[in-house]
């Protein structure tokens, strides 16, 4: 048996998006040995796709804004399923995190008096999103990347973690990974591990997620004994591109609507006025004139309904299309051309202009865009302690999209970038504390288990005949889109779970050709188990949660059930599980919110 490449660290961080890099910076600044492991090159993570901005109640544009309003908006947007403590920490700390970025070199757009400019976004009461045109995610990731580089953090690029390792006491001891360029395996022993692997969107057909969004972190955490909560809460972003087919799902930033864009159906009607839910009636405009006044002065009118939370808008678009009032390619029209000058559009939304021009041949300063819902974000995820990101597995921490609880059943736009920063830092601190407190040097890894996991990952090479991983991925995506899409029903979910069992059998029969070096077929084969695990969790959660709430919409239970609004659905597996093992799901009560925070929610909007 050849010796494996091996590394010892105090803290390893899996995933180098915003949360991962922020955690790495925090742990490294504590003087620990830190490794950052990512599936792609550094700086390519899905965070770059975030466009609109980072939500932080700095009050630079509206002095009335403060963390309490942000907290309230976040809880209401999440339909009260959020972990109150996470929402509180998030609202309180995000201004500091944004300003910290500036100290590291970020260049946000400015107000006239030189402060950070903030823009309007769906569900946020005040203009709150610090932004850089429509490429805020890129700014964030580049700033963190440059900070990480200046701290000399060890980075393992194009290195995919297949499994976490745990010790006899159930604590995490390290990870097994392989280098994508060579296909050679590598092991990491670490006192603490931070998961920051992002989302799961690649299991759907129309998604804004890149190939990386395969839920690796959710899956390895579950397999290692951690808990996943509310996996049924999947956000479908209301505005993805719908045409040409090859770009279907690519995101169209909410900033288009924040900056004045409106949604119209094929009859030219601003249909969002017909879909204002009772919960939002008090603060949403009921006429076009009132909505239009709001853009210039938020005190002159109530918010336009285009800026309702994402779940509301996505469902409304879906209904319009179903009612036969959709655009030629099955979406609706997003029109900013007739409402803002070409110059303003190009300055405020440069990458949207570019994206439509190059990919669809549409000039958004002249024509309306065709848009429709696209799978975007998972609110559910690994259950963590709000203050330090600790999971139920000792030594394992999680932050960012892979963690659950922060956003409840629906995330507000702009809250993900602030989530990354706030909880990335906290998970980094938590992991550093844990590593410092863990006795002895790095834990010993169990050789036989490592071999087992490596053999498992290499199994597809051993079969001469078998399933093509691309076919399997395609079938999974088709199935999830149809059965576990934006609108769900009990029978469809039952069918989904049956089909997932069939897919699991087929994954056990995958065969790949060629060598191990940069073999995308094999890489996909090693992603599929995670995709199946998270898809199963989503389908299970969706079946169990018999209500409609945020990212979970049940046609057979169209109303929110107040009782279920106090419940998390928790998925579990015994430690050492895998995608073939059974996943158990159980309802558990949400943590009780302190009275002073409850009072904030009661307060009528000013």
């Amino acid at each position: 048996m050849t010796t494996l490449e091996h590394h010892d660290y105090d803290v390893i961080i899996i995933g180098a998006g915003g949360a991962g890099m922020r955690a790495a910076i925090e742990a490294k600044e504590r003087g620990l040995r830190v490794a950052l492991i990512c599936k792609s090159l550094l700086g390519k993570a899905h965070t770059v796709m975030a466009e609109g901005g980072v939500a932080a109640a700095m009050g630079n544009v509206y002095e009335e804004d403060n963390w309490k309003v942000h907290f309230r908006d976040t809880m209401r947007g999440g339909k009260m399923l959020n972990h109150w403590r996470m929402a509180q920490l998030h609202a309180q700390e995000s201004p500091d995190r944004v300003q910290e970025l500036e100290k590291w070199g970020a260049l946000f757009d400015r107000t006239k008096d030189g402060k950070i400019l903030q823009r309007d976004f769906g569900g946020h009461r005040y203009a709150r999103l610090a932004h850089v045109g429509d490429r805020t995610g890129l700014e964030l990731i580049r700033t963190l990347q440059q900070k990480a580089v200046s701290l000399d953090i060890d980075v393992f690029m194009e290195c995919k973690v297949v499994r976490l390792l745990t010790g006899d006491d159930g604590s995490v001891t390290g990870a097994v990974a392989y280098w994508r360029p060579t296909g050679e395996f590598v092991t990491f022993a670490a006192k603490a591990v931070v998961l920051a692997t992002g989302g799961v969107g690649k299991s759907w057909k129309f998604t804004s997620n890149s190939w990386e969004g395969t839920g690796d972190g959710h899956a390895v955490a579950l397999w290692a004994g951690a808990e996943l909560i509310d996996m049924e809460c999947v956000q479908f972003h209301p505005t993805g591109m719908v045409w040409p087919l090859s770009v279907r799902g690519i995101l169209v930033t909410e900033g288009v609507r924040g900056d004045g864009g409106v949604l119209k159906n094929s009859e030219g009607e601003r249909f969002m006025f017909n879909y204002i839910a009772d919960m939002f009636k008090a603060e949403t405009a009921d006429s076009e004139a009132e909505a239009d006044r709001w853009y210039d002065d938020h005190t002159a009118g109530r918010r336009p309904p285009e800026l309702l939370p994402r779940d509301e808008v996505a469902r409304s678009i879906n209904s319009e299309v179903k009612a036969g009032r959709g655009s030629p390619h099955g979406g609706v029209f997003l029109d900013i051309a007739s409402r803002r000058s070409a110059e303003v559009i190009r300055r405020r939304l440069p990458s949207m202009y570019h994206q439509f021009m190059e990919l669809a041949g549409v000039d958004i300063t002249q024509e309306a865009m065709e848009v429709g819902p696209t799978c975007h974000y998972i609110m559910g995820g690994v259950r963590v302690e709000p203050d330090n990101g600790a999971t139920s597995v000792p030594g394992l921490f999680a932050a960012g999209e892979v963690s659950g609880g922060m956003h409840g059943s629906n995330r507000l736009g702009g809250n993900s970038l602030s989530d990354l920063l706030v909880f990335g830092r906290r998970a980094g601190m938590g992991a550093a504390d844990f590593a410092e407190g863990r006795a002895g040097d790095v834990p010993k890894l169990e050789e036989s288990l490592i071999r087992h996991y490596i053999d498992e990952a290499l199994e597809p090479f051993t079969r001469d005949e078998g399933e093509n991983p691309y076919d399997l991925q395609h079938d999974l995506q088709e199935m999830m889109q149809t059965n576990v899409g934006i609108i769900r029903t009990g029978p469809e979910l039952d069918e989904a779970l049956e089909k997932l069992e069939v897919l699991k059998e087929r994954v056990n029969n995958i065969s790949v050709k060629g060598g191990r070096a940069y073999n995308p077929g094999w890489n996909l084969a090693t992603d599929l188990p995670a995709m199946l695990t998270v898809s199963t969790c989503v389908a299970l959660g969706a079946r169990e949660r018999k209500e409609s709430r945020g990212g979970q919409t049940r046609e057979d239970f169209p109303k929110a059930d107040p009782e279920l609004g106090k419940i998390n659905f928790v998925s579990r597996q015994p430690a050492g599980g895998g995608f073939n093992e059974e996943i158990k799901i159980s309802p558990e009560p949400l943590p009780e919110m302190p009275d002073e925070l409850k009072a904030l929610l009661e307060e009528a909007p000013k």
Partner: protein
Amino acid sequence: MTTVENSATRVDNSETPVVLGGTRGGPDVSTVRKDRWWISPVITVSILTSFVVYATWAAFVGKNYYAGSSLHRDLISPFYSPCLTASCVPGSTHSPTISWWTISPALLILIFPLGFRLTCYYYRRAYYRSFWWAPPACSVVDSHKSYSGESRFPLIFQNVHRYFFYFGLIFNVILTYDAILAFSMPGEGGIGVSIGTLILCSNAVLLWLYSLSCHSCRHLCGGQVRSFAKHPWRHKFWKFVTPLNAKHMQFAWISLFVVALSDAYIRLVASGTITDFKIF
């Protein structure tokens, strides 16, 4: 494989150890491009060569560069202005003259506009590509054995561009003065506008545009400051020249053509081949 190893010092100023070599991908050919990438260098070479040949001849020939009062005009070729030697034809000079310079007066002064264009960031691009073939076109191989760019002698002298720019400004003033003189029509009504007037005026305007759009000018106007907000006037200047700078290439070509045209036109007038048509 891309590990970035921990190093003892935070910043390492040594040359990067080149572990970066290795087999390149793609076929070992000078280019995979199949489009006609060579058209652009061919055009550049033809135009620049024609200009150099013409300008050399025109500079050495030392006559027919001034259409004076005998022709009821005051038109001087930009190649010969300012005319500073004792050999300058009567009327063409407005300053004390140098007697020891006996060859063509053009050769005394042409070094400045020539130097300005030779060290110009745009012309550098043009001739490095088309004459030097370093590289002839993007993703077409530059087959020189070694390459040090502008980091060593003699090309390090490209850095004096801003001084040629300053001299260029002096020339612009003189050639603007020439353009004003071109309105004078001694013995034909005193002042007027002829084709020659228009040519010399456009020549002066284009030379100003070429100079003001220069990259050094943009830098000196305001590009060099760290904060525009602290230097509002520098920002105004910078904002004025920035759109011009974007058209520097166009100005470089058009002004080159018009300079040659001015010389050729005046040459034809001065030699009596044609008469300068008076418009009004």
